């Protein structure tokens, strides 16, 4: 005989049941045949000799039925009825199998069937979409890579490499006529390579020692240039007569070109003037006007 009440007394409220999970507000039942999942008098599969559930296996729903007549045969206690794949037909099957059963169990079985079909649909939809593949990271490997990356960064010396590359490109002439430096570079290279022409170098030295330079005072500003124009013209004419204009006027040219760069940059208005073009104002400012200069300027622009 099944003593449902006695069993419930033993395992029910506040008593021990191995399937019971207690939380603050509620008690759950971990028994796999439980229809609702809660631990109460009408949902406990142990304390009810007439019981039914719906369970799903590999995408198919089955109705499990337990009746009191088979209580003595634990191996055959649960009768498994395969339900139709069609939801509506499955509901009818439940109805016909559980006819005359308490409404509570019928209702709960149908509810459970609904939930199961819903989640099966969801699974099928998700498998069609892209699935995220989780790749486990090994902490040791990550740490090792991070360290190696830091060391590689130090070894790379990026700024130097980039600067070197840019200067190489400038020397090769990939920038064409944009910058006026190439003439300089070319001349300097020529000087270095041709050691035969020592006489030229001697001449240069003599000329450089002989040239007069007008050194400005501390508070000299560029705006005051106009006063010196006459002087420059005087000097300019004498410069033209010399053969090696450019070599003697190296410093002046470089400064002039720097200013050209600056003016060009200013006119374009796109270059940030703060960073690299912080022209350090030397106290010595030598300005020479040469007649060939304007021609170059127009070419550059």
């Amino acid at each position, binding site marked *: 005989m099944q003593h449902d009440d006695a069993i419930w007394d033993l395992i029910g409220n506040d008593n021990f049941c191995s399937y019971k999970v207690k939380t603050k507000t509620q008690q759950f039942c971990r028994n796999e045949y439980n229809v609702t999942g809660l631990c109460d008098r009408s949902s406990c599969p142990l304390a009810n000799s007439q019981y039914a559930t719906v369970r799903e296996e590999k995408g198919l729903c089955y109705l499990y039925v337990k009746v009191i007549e088979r209580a003595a045969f634990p191996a055959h206690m649960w009768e498994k009825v395969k339900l139709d794949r069609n939801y509506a037909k499955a509901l009818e099957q439940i109805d016909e199998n559980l006819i005359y059963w308490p409404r509570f169990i019928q209702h709960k079985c149908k509810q459970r069937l609904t939930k199961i079909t819903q989640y099966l649909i969801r699974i099928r939809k998700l498998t069609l*979409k892209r699935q995220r593949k989780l790749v486990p990271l090994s902490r040791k490997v990550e740490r090792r890579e991070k360290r190696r990356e830091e060391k590689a*960064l130090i070894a790379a010396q*990026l*700024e130097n490499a*980039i600067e070197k590359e*840019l200067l190489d490109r400038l020397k090769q002439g990939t920038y064409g006529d944009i910058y006026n430096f*190439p003439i300089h570079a070319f001349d300097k290279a020529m000087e270095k390579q041709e050691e035969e022409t020592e006489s030229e170098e001697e001449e240069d030295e003599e000329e450089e020692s002989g040239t007069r330079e007008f050194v400005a005072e501390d508070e000299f500003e560029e705006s005051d240039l106009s006063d010196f124009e006459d002087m420059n013209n005087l000097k300019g004419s004498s410069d033209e007569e010399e053969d090696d204009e450019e070599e003697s006027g190296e410093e002046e040219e470089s400064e002039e070109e720097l200013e050209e760069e600056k003016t060009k940059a200013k006119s374009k208005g796109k270059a*940030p003037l703060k*960073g690299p*073009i912080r022209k350090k104002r030397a106290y010595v400012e030598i300005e020479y006007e040469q007649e060939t200069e304007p021609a170059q300027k127009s070419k550059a622009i």
Partner: protein
Amino acid sequence: MDSNEATTSESVSKKRGKTKKVKRKVKPDEAPVQEMDQAEGEETEKKSVSGPCFPPTFSVSEIKNKQRRHAMFLKLKEEKRKQKLELKKKKKKERKALGDQAPPKEVPKTIENQRIYDETTVNPEDEEVAFDEGTDEFSAYFSRLTNPKVLITTSDRPRGRTVRFCEQLATVIPHAHVYYRRGLALKRVIPQCVSRGFTYVMVINEDRKVPNGLVLCHLPDGPTAHFKVSNVRLRKEMKRRGKDPTEHVPEVILNNFSTRLGHSIGRLFAALFPHDPQFVGRQVATFHNQRDFIFFRFHRYIFKNEKKVGIQELGPRFTLKLRSLQKGTFDSKFGEYEWVHKRHEMDSSRRKFHL
């Protein structure tokens, strides 16, 4: 008398500081040893311990007292350092004395020096390589038939950092468009891109609100490269940066791509940018490979004179590490992988690099 002296010296030394202990030992000990023939065990030991010119017949670790042991160890280290310095000075003098005849300076060993030679390293004059490069998937780009057009997108539901990273990348790479992913499958996205004339698809994968992966797919069936992204720095996190990059086409610098694999990756990056850089913009994008890490930087340069150039960093920076290179377009299941990073095989040697 000796024992008294010894005991007094010991007691004194124990009271005073570390190094003083040893010095104190020296003075009283040396005197009696000279005078007396009685060599007490302690004294000889002490003499051998404290005299620096004596070769140590024991090791520092035999002293049981921690403080004394530590003091002796420090002394030992000091000795060694002095010897090393003397040696260096001597060598330098010799070098100077020899002048021109001195043997050439030894080059210090670096990882780059000691790198295991990779047989796929490209020889610049190699014809086969040149032929391959003339007929591979990038030949269309390099023969100026196509112009690059890049689509940048992310994985699902990107967070702020990734979104900003995408936007900044789009400013750095000309003709780049950012599209929101909306959970679309890449395999469906790719044919659509092809039909709209894109040449590249760049997918930035995100993990825990931070970009950590990059899939770069060259479109009309080009190779697909999967990289690990690390150390992403957005524009506002950069120190001393300049203004935003302009619309000019930047120049491209590719450094240290030496092997065949490195070459193909280098071309992959080169084909991202249009052919003719606008030198007016003075912007340069650098992909620098060092020990299989590819560092990306974006700078603005200015030539101060023909020997000096100033660079100022704008733009985002990140590092990439190649994880796999696949022959066709993105297909993780059935794709044909040209190169896959296998950790146990490839990471075993510290001197072996593949790019």
